[in-house]
């Protein structure tokens, strides 16, 4: 029983902190952006409110945003580790975090429209498990709200409307189109996760794992790193700005990954993360003890 409690406590703490504490790299990017917007502008006002909100959430120990989102857990575990057990204790921690108000009752039965009291239901939370040669458990949590999830897009190249061919410039055109279509509706300034290739399902999956990367990193694949920078530069000129009120800061980051594809398919998948980019990781012992934040 002791072992069990320790797991639940560690995972509960991960959820709590993810919900109330914006990662330092994101806050820094918001601070930098704030300085670039004109005095008395709507853009600056939005970023000022956002920064105040980030501080208040920490001080109040309460959710940054009331949409506490889809909970996406990424686990790396030692080979042979019991992942069913891990899923079970994580569900317990989710139910507890909901009871304590760190998560909103945010899970709806798609057929009946009924709201679930615990956020533990069919397909919620979301789990990815990977067995690796390691002796500890690495867990990462993304909380992704519905407003930004709704503005995600998937394209199939070639795309005649955008004059986008089956090459990286075609990819760039799709991503620009996604930014323009989203406007401020995904709670700009946002962060884009992009996947080039894959199938329709793995494309979205890979686009979201890009959100596990730090804002200031750059793809280790040289050409993707260049494409990330180019799109970020292009986006600056669109004048969509925070909340779509106009301004320089339309995006805080662009992260691109790729998967192989079938000869006949060429998908470009874009996931949008709102400024309330809730991402945390923790290193746990195989007994569930908390070791450190990642």
């Amino acid at each position, binding site marked *: 029983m002791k072992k069990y409690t320790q797991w639940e406590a560690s995972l509960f703490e991960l959820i709590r902190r993810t919900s109330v504490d914006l990662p330092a790299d994101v806050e820094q990017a918001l601070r930098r952006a704030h300085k670039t917007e004109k005095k008395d502008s709507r853009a600056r006002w939005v970023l000022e409110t956002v920064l105040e909100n980030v501080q208040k959430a920490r001080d109040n120990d309460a959710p940054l945003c009331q949409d*506490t989102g889809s909970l996406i857990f990424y686990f790396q575990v030692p080979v042979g580790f019991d992942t069913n057990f891990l899923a079970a204790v994580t569900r317990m921690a989710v139910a507890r975090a909901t009871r304590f108000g760190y998560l909103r009752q945010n899970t709806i039965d798609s057929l009946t429209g009924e709201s679930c009291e615990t956020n533990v239901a069919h397909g919620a939370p979301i789990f990815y498990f990977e067995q690796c040669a390691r002796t500890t458990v690495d867990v990462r949590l993304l909380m992704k709200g519905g407003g930004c999830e709704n503005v995600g897009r998937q394209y199939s190249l070639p795309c005649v409307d955008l004059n986008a061919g089956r090459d990286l410039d075609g990819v760039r055109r799709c991503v620009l*189109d996604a930014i323009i279509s989203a406007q401020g509706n995904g709670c700009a300034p946002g962060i884009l996760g992009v996947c080039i290739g894959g199938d329709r399902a793995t494309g979205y999956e890979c686009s979201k794992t890009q959100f596990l990367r730090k804002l200031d990193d750059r793809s280790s694949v040289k050409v993707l790193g260049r494409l990330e920078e180019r799109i970020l530069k292009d986006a600056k000129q669109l004048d969509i700005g925070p909340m779509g009120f106009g301004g320089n800061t339309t995006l805080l980051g662009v992260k691109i990954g790729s998967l192989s594809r079938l000869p006949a398919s060429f998908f470009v998948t874009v996931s949008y993360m709102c400024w309330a980019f809730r991402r945390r990781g923790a290193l746990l012992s195989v007994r569930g003890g908390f070791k450190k934040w990642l």
Partner: protein
Amino acid sequence: MAIASLRKLEYPFTPEQVGSLRTGQFVWVSGLVYTARDRMHKYLFDGGKSPVDLKNSAIYHCGPVVVRKEGNWVVRAAGPTTSLREEPYLPRIIKEHGVRVIIGKGSMGRETEKACVEGGCVYLHAVGGAAQVLAGKVVAVKDVYFGSEFGLAEAMWALEIKDFPAIVAIDSRGRSLMKKIQSTSRMIGRKLMETDRFEV
């Protein structure tokens, strides 16, 4: 932040008060507002009876995090939700119930613009994601309706707010702040697509 154009909007929301607001202005709203989101909009649109009189009222597109503490409701987070999802329902609700103020986030469609003109209503945009700043503007939870039927996020909460910050996104003349930004960004985007091809 000191803003020269700051306007105050106070309950009860009169046609004169609301009619004088202009797109792009900063507003502080005070008084009674009712939260409503997807379930509530569909319910009212389908002819469901409103538990409160919505004439001259403010509807806030928000699904708050609310917890029970020592017998009282406490709002723990209360930012706006995307208003565009209510576009099919909202114009009828504004018209039939005489709603005077809508608070939400994101762009709205032509039908809401029309309803704002016809009904003398405004659409105010709050900062999306600013759940803590905005929860701090809630001074009292007056009541809750449909809590057990719709769930706590979808319920209609009667909240008293004080100096709640927002921007006029559609005024009662139907002028839209975001529409202009949308068309400009589309134009710039088209140009960017056609310049300086990205090569491997």
